[in-house]
């Protein structure tokens, strides 16, 4: 108990010191900074729609990660899984069925994108189950391979003949572009898909046998083994589903925002990594994650406001994100220990 409060105190101290450091360097008061972030992210219709747009990939990746984190499978590969989803969608849209009507093409892109993301996540699953390789390392490394693969495609075989040699794929046909709300960038089919999946995941996690197994394995692998659970099957499933969800996020980005494949850094500005923080802040609860990804989307959106309107350096928001990550880490670890103890005692 005491240790937990000490941890919380420590993490708050780190945050306050960090904010104070920003103040010392820039002489922008933290309250003004946060006011500016909040206003620009949530204070106008425009800000809200951008926040919503940004929250879509965070939500899908965060939901996917929550499943594997729940079962203590540490998938850090959402970034790569997202990119492979984008690759799958591009493949369908440009090379497999470019002339298909919209109502067929869009579902096919989502389906294949999810499969590609899921397959990418299966690699660490297989290596973990068959060779006992650490999935953190494998999934992390696979991100870099996915980044290089996307770059290879847009510099190489998928480079458009119409773009003067620049690393872009050809633009998607109109039938492969997701509709958006009015003139915003909210590609609502992906958003609706994410919300439905959040509810389904919630039900799976708390109301199904698989969810029960996931939670048992996450709490104590020994207990799960003792109970005779098929741990390998669960590891496969959580990674496959998680990768699939991240893949959907990738489909949303290329079909909803960019309408083409481009270099990896142009598709995702680190959503897969930010989603790790989102999943933990949402306490690995699918419904909370929906809320947190909206708030975190706001933080990312507000981040450019403090650069443009307060003249703070571009890295300030990364600094704040880092502070939040420290906070979450300290909180998260004391929390899990605490809740495990409580559960053992209580139930």
């Amino acid at each position, binding site marked *: 108990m005491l240790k937990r409060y000490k941890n919380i105190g420590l993490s708050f101290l780190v945050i306050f010191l960090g904010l104070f450091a920003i103040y010392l360097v820039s002489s922008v008061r933290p309250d003004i900074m946060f006011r500016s972030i909040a206003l620009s992210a949530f204070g106008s219709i425009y800000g809200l729609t951008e926040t919503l747009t940004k929250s879509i990939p965070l939500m899908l990746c965060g939901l996917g990660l929550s499943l594997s984190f729940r079962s203590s499978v540490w998938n850090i590969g959402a970034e790569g899984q997202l990119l492979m989803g984008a690759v799958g969608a591009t493949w369908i849209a440009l090379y497999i069925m470019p002339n298909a009507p919209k109502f067929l093409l869009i579902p096919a892109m989502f389906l294949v994108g999810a499969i590609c993301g899921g397959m990418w996540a299966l690699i660490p699953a297989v290596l973990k189950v068959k060779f006992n390789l650490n999935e953190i390392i494998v999934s992390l490394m696979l991100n870099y391979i996915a980044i290089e693969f996307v770059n290879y495609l847009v510099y190489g075989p998928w480079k458009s003949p119409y773009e003067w040699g620049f690393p872009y794929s050809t633009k998607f046909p109109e039938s492969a572009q997701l509709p958006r709300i009015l003139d915003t960038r909210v590609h609502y089919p992906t958003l609706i898909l994410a919300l439905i999946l959040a509810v389904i995941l919630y039900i799976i996690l708390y109301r199904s046998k698989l969810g029960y197994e996931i939670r048992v394995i996450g709490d104590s692998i020994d207990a799960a083994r003792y109970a005779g659970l098929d741990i390998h099957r669960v590891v496969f499933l959580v990674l496959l589903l998680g990768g699939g969800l991240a893949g959907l996020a990738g489909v949303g980005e290329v079909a909803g*925002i960019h309408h083409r494949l481009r270099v990896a850094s142009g598709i995702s500005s680190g959503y897969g990594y930010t989603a790790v923080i989102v999943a933990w802040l949402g306490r690995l609860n699918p419904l909370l994650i929906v809320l947190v990804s909206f708030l975190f989307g706001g933080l990312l959106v507000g981040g450019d406001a403090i650069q443009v309107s307060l003249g703070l350096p571009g890295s300030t928001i990364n600094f704040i994100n880092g502070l939040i990550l420290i906070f979450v880490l300290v909180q998260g670890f004391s929390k899990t220990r605490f809740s495990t103890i409580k559960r053992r005692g209580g139930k």
Partner: protein
Amino acid sequence: MRSKFLVVLSLVLLFVLTVNTVNGVGAEKKLRVAFIYVGPIGDYGWSHAHEMARQSLIKKLPWVEFLPPAESVPEADVIRFIDRFVREEKADVIFTTSFGYMDATIEAGKKYPDKIFFHCSGYSRSKNVGTYFAELYQIYYLNGLMAGALTKTNKVGYVGAHPIPEVIRHINAFALGVQEVNPKATVDVRWLFSWYDPSKARMAAESLISDGCDVLAFTEDSPTVVTVGEEYTKKGKPVYTFGHYSPMQKYGPNSCVSGQLVHWEVIYRDILEKIRRKVYTNTNLENVDYWWLLKEKAVELGGEFGVPINPKFIPALKDKKITDPVFGKISVYDLVMKRLSQMKANPEKFDPFTGPIKDQTGKVRIEAGRRASHDELWNMDWFVSNVIAKIPK
């Protein structure tokens, strides 16, 4: 009575006139101008050069309100920065300074038809989106002349950022310069697949050096390659380098021979003044494309402003003599200076991409006597014959 009336009238008139003139002067609404950079301002390459230009114009153009620039803007997010500049900062003109911003800038042009956009290094334009570029191939060619003269191993290296036409064109121009003074020398290339990556640039430079290269040029937004050259030179293994984009001679006083420098402010000033005079409006930018070189003074030869060649290397370049079909026996130093003045002339008296130019397979790409067209330069996806690296396909 009447005189009193006249006095009052004249006073009133005077008042109205002065107020009007004062208003007339003060009423010129300041043009609000925003810049969006892809790298950190401190990268000391691309974004830094744009920022230096912006800062130098703050005093020179008092009728412009320069908004705080946005740095390190990911390509995926640039549209939101544009939105913010337009909606909240009320920007009238926005410069987007990375080729990856192209789609978003065109999209923004449609979304905000009454604003003016200029996109650096792209090819898509619309009625309120123009493009501009300060082109360096002439300078790379001049650097190549010096590189060909200075290499002892006959192996010259190039650290390339991305295999896109711009960088390929620069490597080719550099290689043409090398070839002109040293037909035996080859040019090897290492790709970074990044505009800014000091650690990869160091690896690439060291890999070229270990393959025997003793002169290096590069495209990357940090002075890393120059620093590596300086380290080797100090250790007694001379490696000569050419600075890129910003003055980098101070990072390698014994290694940096010359380099490419850019004066973006020349272009920015021209654009902004034409916007002020309503030469450029939000309806006539469809064909406005700046492609400015030496003759427009948008680029400069040197590793330091005003220093075309590091004085340390002038004797060596004066000693190296070649036979030129036009100039006869001439030192490389004199050749560089001759070519420089030829290309500064308007219209240019010389262009590095004048045929016959063969590619790596021996195929003639530019026939004898013909200069490469703008489109050929823009599309360039082949290496000239003395480059031994391959373009990733």
